[in-house]
């Protein structure tokens, strides 16, 4: 579970990226943070795992306050998938990338290998095991990045724009893949079709502040709210309105 109360995050130059945000993500829930570019979605996710320090408010993840002393446990339980898979895949092969987390958390090589095999089988990506990251397509990189976090067996997954840089087919594949992951999920996106497909509970963010929180049908199909967030209705809703 993640509980955020009155969170503010400011960059060293004084820019306030997140301001007074509060929300709760319950166990097993799938929540989307939707907002336009620059709304502070990625900053919010980084703050949840302590990459960026909060300048105000509190964050509680898996029953622990996000503070320096708890960061190793929090980062083992809360996995963050970055927007650009090239940021996440830094080892010479996909095997080593997926095994990176388990090895760092002290698993033996046999256990790490077992985790890699399990994850690759679950993602139907066994063929990527020995490939170098720079040889993969955008969709494959995204799957590998997802695998590198799943190998740590987190209880919560934070996904930053999981459908960006993907062609429609790869995007559909990722949406289906995410739907099959039965973990607590917090997805930051401006892909509203993804948000609608994945989440029963989106929250909308505008210029660092949260201003709408509720059911997917109430939020994502509300033209006025979406316009306020700098977004448009999901394509499927636009089509049904036109019809």
């Amino acid at each position, binding site marked *: 579970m993640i509980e955020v109360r009155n969170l503010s995050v400011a960059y060293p130059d004084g820019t306030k990226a997140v301001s007074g945000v509060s929300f709760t993500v319950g166990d097993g829930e799938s929540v989307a943070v939707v907002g336009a570019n620059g709304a502070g979605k990625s900053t919010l996710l980084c703050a949840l795992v302590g990459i960026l320090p909060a300048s105000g408010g509190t964050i509680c993840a898996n029953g622990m306050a996000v503070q320096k002393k708890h960061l190793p446990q929090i980062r083992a339980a809360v996995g*963050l998938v970055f927007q650009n898979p090239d940021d996440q895949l830094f080892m010479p092969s996909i095997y080593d990338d997926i095994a990176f987390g388990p090895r*760092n958390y002290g698993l033996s090589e046999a256990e790490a290998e077992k985790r890699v095999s399990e994850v690759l089988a679950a993602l139907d990506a066994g063929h990527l095991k020995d490939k*170098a990251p720079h040889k993969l397509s955008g969709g494959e990189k995204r799957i590998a990045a997802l695998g590198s976090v799943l190998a*740590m067996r987190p209880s919560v997954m934070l996904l930053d724009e999981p459908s960006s840089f993907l062609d429609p087919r790869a995007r559909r594949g990722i949406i289906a893949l995410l739907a099959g992951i039965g973990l607590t999920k917090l997805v930051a996106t401006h892909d509203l079709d993804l948000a609608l497909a994945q989440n029963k509970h989106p929250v909308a963010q505008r210029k660092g502040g949260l201003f709408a929180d509720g059911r997917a049908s109430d939020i994502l199909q509300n033209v006025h709210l979406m316009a306020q967030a700098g977004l448009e209705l999901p394509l499927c809703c636009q089509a049904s309105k036109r019809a």
Partner: protein
Amino acid sequence: MRDCGRTRWWKGAVTIADIKSSIGELYAIEQLARGASAVHRLHPMAKLIATAFYIIAVASYGRYDAGGLMVYAFYPAVMMAVSETPCRFLLRRFLPALPFVLLAGISNVLFDTQTAFFIGPVGVSFGVLSLAVILIKAWLSVTVVLILAATTPMQDLACQLARLRIPAVLVMLVAMTYRYMGILSDEAHAMFTAYTLRAPKQKGIAMAHMGSFTGQLLLRSIGRAERVYAAMKCRGFHGAQRLAPARRAAAADWVFCVCVCLFSVLFRVVNFSYLLGRILV
């Protein structure tokens, strides 16, 4: 006219596209390293030690001892043939080192003009002889290092360097620089493409824009480095990279290593080129 001159000057300059193609070649080494020849199958540590020993033996030769070095061509020749490493690839990769080697040896030609021997009526000075020795040493050393790189994946090499107690920070620096050169070149290539599309008559990057271009590239690289580090921290990284345990070296691997080391020493102690010359002449 001034513009034309500047254009001609830049025609000879290295462009980002050249850098990208060089990095493409570097990744081509990785492709070669995934081969299955007997050399590829040798344990990385055995190859690493043998290569280091060979280079030390070659480097220890005197500045005029060109004849003694000739027998050392045997090792890279055999390794190249068995591993099926293309000769052209090795030659092409040696070319960038050639200017530096020539620069190191050219002063000898200018200052050491005493005649060493005659080839027919032409006298060969000690300076020319020492330049030839520098060239041979560089060629042999670069070739064996290239063969090592072309027959051993980078991750295996990094792993063995760590086992040789090379500081973990340095090993990780090597491994990650290798991984991220491609991404950096893509970044530079994208910027260069955007630049040339808006300056179609310009060859390369104008000197006036070079500062902001490299500055932007540096800032992007720093941003990228910060995000990569954040991703590493998220997966439990605390400063030391844990590597997969390498497979154990077999007896054959150590036999290879010991043979190369022994022959390197033997060739150094006994002048086989001289003996061979006496038998043949």
